[in-house]
């Protein structure tokens, strides 16, 4: 269960998130849509624990004060952040990285480390589910990977680290239609009653593949509208400008 309450985030005195509230129940998939500059990536970064933001408000996840935890502790608590731009790490082998990450997370969760053969079997199955080229196993993490390969690698990590809350930041960016389908299938295979997801995207396109339970519109650092999956379709038809203007008008009337 994730509760975000009156969250603000500023960077260099500039407020990017401005009173954001959001609740996600176990097993639910929520989508956050919004125009450029709405604060979508900032929300992902603040959830992940990136330095450099002044943050107020609260984020509670399974009873834990997420904001007081280090990024690695958040991973241990079940959070996974799929990056919009996965970082290239030359010199660190992909499988070595994956196993180190997996065992770190398992230690944080009080589980035993995974043995090599179990690990390899699990990695093989996860690579199969995202149709990943096996030659990428022994390459350095994301180093020289294509856009699609990087995103598959993110979903591979997600499958291996078994989060209970996955935040997917613009996972569709830079993907052609085939890669989008494969990545979405990988994500859908990981949907379960105990795993929540927050899918952050600019376009409705991805939500045709990963069908959300709830859709929220983020603008000016707060959620201005929420609805079911049909809201994504409506947004695509009318555009953000109109939606934002209407929401502002509604807010004005209410006042």
């Amino acid at each position, binding site marked *: 269960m994730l509760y975000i309450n009156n969250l603000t985030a500023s960077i260099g005195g500039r407020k990017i998130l401005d009173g954001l509230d959001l609740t996600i129940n176990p097993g639910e998939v929520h989508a956050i849509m919004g125009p450029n500059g709405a604060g979508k990536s900032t929300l992902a970064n603040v959830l992940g624990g990136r330095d450099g933001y002044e943050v107020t408000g609260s984020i509670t996840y399974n009873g834990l004060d997420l904001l007081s935890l280090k990024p690695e502790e958040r991973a241990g608590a079940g959070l996974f952040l799929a990056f919009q731009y996965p970082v290239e*790490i030359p010199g660190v082998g992909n499988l070595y990285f994956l196993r180190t990450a997996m065992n770190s997370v398992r230690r944080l969760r009080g589980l035993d480390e995974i043995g090599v053969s179990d690990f390899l079997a699990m990695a093989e199955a996860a690579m199969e589910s995202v149709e990943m080229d096996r030659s990428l196993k022994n390459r350095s993490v994301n180093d020289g990977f294509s856009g699609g390969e990087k995103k598959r690698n993110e979903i591979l990590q997600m499958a291996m680290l078994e989060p209970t809350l996955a935040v997917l930041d613009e996972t569709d960016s830079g993907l052609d239609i085939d890669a989008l389908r494969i990545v979405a299938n990988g994500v859908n295979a990981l949907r379960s009653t105990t795993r929540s997801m927050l899918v952050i995207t600019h376009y409705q396109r991805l939500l045709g593949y990963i069908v959300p339970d709830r859709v929220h519109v983020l603008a000016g650092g707060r959620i201005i509208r929420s609805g079911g999956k049909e809201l994504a379709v409506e947004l695509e038809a009318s555009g953000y400008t109109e939606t934002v203007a209407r929401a502002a008008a509604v807010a004005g009337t209410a006042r």
Partner: protein
Amino acid sequence: MSSTAIATRLRDLGQPADRGEPEWLVRSRASAFSWLAEHGFPTQKNEAWRYLRLGPIIDGEFRPSRPGNDLSAQIVNQLVPDLGGPRLVFVDGHLHTGLCTFGEDVQGLTIASIASLLTTRSNVLPAFFDDGDHEYRDGFAALNVGLAGDGAFIAIAAGVIVEQPIQIVYCSTDDLQPVLSTTRSCVVAEPGSRVVLVETHVGVGVNPSFANNVTRIDVGQNAQVEHHMIQNAAPQAVQFGVLDVTQGANSHFSSNAFSLGASVARHEVRVRLDGEAADVTLAGLYLPSGSQHHDNPVTVEHVAPGCTSRQIYNGVLDEQGHGVFNGRIIVQPSANGTDATQSNRNLVLSDRAEIDTRPRLEILTDDVTCAHGVTVGRLDEDAIFYLRTRGIAEPMARSMLTMAFANEMVQRVENVSLRSWVEHVVSQRLDSSTRLAAGVDADTAEVAP
């Protein structure tokens, strides 16, 4: 003490009159000492020594080493790998036959100690100690000729391929009165021969020691020589070494230099490309931390046309470590068609660490391809965040990225046993500083509310 007084003191200590050396050597030593008395030791005004404070080293009251110091085989085996081939072990600059492994005789391979050759009236040695003009590159080069009493002599006959790597181990012992070890080693790879050399510098104890070594390698036409240098000397060691290489036509030479230990280490590599179409790759990794100083002067001189040279040196600088890359490429007017590159990348882990990097290109002909590049940077914070979001704690993330940077150089070592040993000592060395960082982190975490 003046340079002259130091030279006189070292001469008197190192050269008892009754040593019974051949007359040519007595003359060479005398001329070296008189050169040293006249010119002194280099100062920071000397371009090749400008980043090193020599005063405290020269004033260190070092006493030239004597043969006969002992060390247990168990200790040596802990300090150096067993690569299966011949292994020469020098203790404080003198061959310790009890610790050596000569292995099976290989036809066309000669392995001997310089000391043994000095007593057998060898005719190859005079030119190796004295090239006739009585000029020395600097005071330490002269001091080496003045004092060197031993070293490795390795000759590979034409066309002979030596399969197993030949190890040369230099080990210092612990002595309250600091000892100066001086060796002069010589490798002659005749035309078409092939050999892999592994030079290791290690030591025991906590007292200062000083080593001033010279290794000369003559790579004949079409010969192929691979040289590895792993300097993992004792913490208070001052380690000076020169690798002086001359290459014939179509020859290949490569060197991988790993500088890990010592308080002050200076590993100079000089390569002269004398024959056409020769190629050379000089790689290095230096890891100064604490208050260590690792100096890497590298010179490649293109004399013959059509040669290729590569200099690839990387450094990881932590705490108050000081690293120097002083890389020179000289292209003589005769060296048309030269292809020379140089790259130096540095990873700085601490605000107090220092790196001096200095590319020096002296190109005296037009027909050349020459490129050089330098970077000085820190760990990629985006990469650290990425690893941390995958559950990897910050100290581990930093250590992984640091090791990844160093690993590029480690992976250049082709011999599998040697590579895994280098990997082991490099990661051990890097881990000891990251562990320290982790400790500091834990302390502040306890204090925080």
